[in-house]
């Protein structure tokens, strides 16, 4: 393709990563559980710390600290149809922006982004704000998620139930 010769590699990478992030966001917003689960690497870790951004999840409580098998369990619980905190499912729409992409020395790609998420559920309507840190690996034409960290702006406060995929 001629375009690849014209578009610098870093801009192309930024575009590819952004498209991946937007795709992941859509799967979460639309509760496409299986398609979302398929984005994970076999050693994937899904982490949402509590009480700050620099805690050690091996020592202190996190809101979510799922290894790959626990991610699968989370998805299986949704599929029972009796995960009441998501039955009925929340109406969710998020806007993800401010995407920064770097290639790490081990070849993995780290992307950072901000997201504002609107959630409507039986309790009411709520807004969440967070910083995402993605650690991605190349897989085929796309990427797989090795780690996704979600730094909620209010993670030191008492939070309402957070049962949709964030």
């Amino acid at each position, binding site marked *: 393709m001629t375009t690849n010769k014209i578009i610098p590699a870093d801009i192309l990478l930024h575009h590819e990563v952004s498209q991946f992030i937007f795709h992941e966001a859509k799967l979460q917003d639309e509760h496409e559980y299986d398609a979302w689960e398929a984005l994970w690497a076999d050693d994937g870790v899904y982490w*949402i710390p*509590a*009480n700050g951004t620099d*805690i050690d999840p*091996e*020592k*202190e*409580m*996190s*809101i*979510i*600290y*799922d290894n790959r098998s*626990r991610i699968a*369990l*989370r998805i*299986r*619980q949704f*599929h*029972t*149809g*009796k*995960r*009441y*905190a998501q039955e009925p499912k929340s109406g969710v729409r998020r806007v993800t922006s401010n995407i920064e992409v770097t290639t790490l020395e081990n070849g993995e790609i780290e992307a950072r982004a901000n997201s504002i998420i609107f959630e409507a559920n*039986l*309790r009411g309507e709520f807004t969440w704000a967070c910083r995402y840190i993605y650690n991605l690996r190349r897989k085929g034409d796309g990427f797989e998620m090795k780690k996704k960290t979600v730094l909620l702006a209010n993670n*030191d*406060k*008492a*939070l*309402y*139930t*957070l*049962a949709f995929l964030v």
Partner: protein
Amino acid sequence: MPVENKIDFDTLIKSDQVHGSLYHNEEIYKEELEKIWFKTWVYVGHESEIPKTNDFIMKSIGPQPVIMTRDRKNKIQLLQNRCPHRGNQVCVKQKGNAKLFTCPYHSWTFSNSGDLVGYAFPEGYEGNPNADKKKLGLAKVARVASYRGFIFGSMAEEGPSLEEHLGGAMEMLDRVCLTSPEGEIEVTAGFLKHKTRSNWKFLVENETDGYHPAFVHSSIFSVAESGIGGLYDNKSTALTRDYGNGHTEVDLRPEFRKFDEPMRWFGTTPKKLPDYVKNMNAAYGDTRAREIMIDGTPHAMIYPNLFIAEIQLFVIQPVAVDETVQHVTALQFKGAPVLNRRMRQQTMGSVGPAGFLLADDSEMYERTQRGVKSKQPEWLFLGRGEQREYRDEDGYRVSHATDETPSRGIWRHYRSLMEE
């Protein structure tokens, strides 16, 4: 100012029915603050959260914050976070180590036992007979007492002692500590804070409601192949127990004893925890250690706000008539690092805003809160198992694991507190 007794609790609480307004009436909530939260013994924190001299941590009694300190003399103090000058919050840090607290507004400085040690520009107070430093310290929670590291506070100068308040439920705290090879638990893993738009009493009652798990938690029981489901089955041999004074439990020991397998209570086997088993045997002798490891930790609700759910410690905090925060952490047993790690992992999976269990409990709290605002039938029916309830050898009411003996006990105690 004495609270005028306008609400007749006798007509709102019957032995097997309670009136829906008890969960959403603002006046009742205000009266509960005075008669329960700012009067009786309330769990505040654990000694291991402030291990060193001059450590402090922010805690609460009901909606009100308190600073829990270990002062210079290693005495535990519970201080109200309100400057005696003009009322500013003296401390806004969650935890730390400090000999002194300086109010940022006009720089009055207090020791970590609450005494006013100095005010800025002292000339303005010199010769003023009312500016007596001894009278202008931080207010203290009137009574502080601890049992096996669990620290409780009561804002009433007088009343039953902590031992009298805990009564038979004290033994449940002993049971928690027994599971540690060193006989002590620690609270060192940090808290998740889960907010729910529901009255605090729905949470208290749910903690020892053995009727709901088979339904509310069937989603996770079925996919996690967890053994917990059977404990709350219709055929379970587990029991509910009412210790009086509002303290209740679901006693799972009959089920665990039936299987007679050490560590089954934690869903594991001695083989997977060789060091823990070795340390337990060394501490208690093989026979006693085996019994302890079969029985496991209790599922205990210490009224009004400390819930020990086998491997977790919850603190229930009302913040408004229809809003409650559950603070939750993994219990940690002194001298059991491998077990502790697994307890943290399981806790993170189960509880908090995204937990496999608690997110669904919380959903039920909120739906019931909205539900009871419907006009009719006005009453909630808590009569399950009343006809098959009996007294155990200690005289406490017990019944089947799914029976509402705990709820009835909780309301009996509540009525006695509110009628005082």
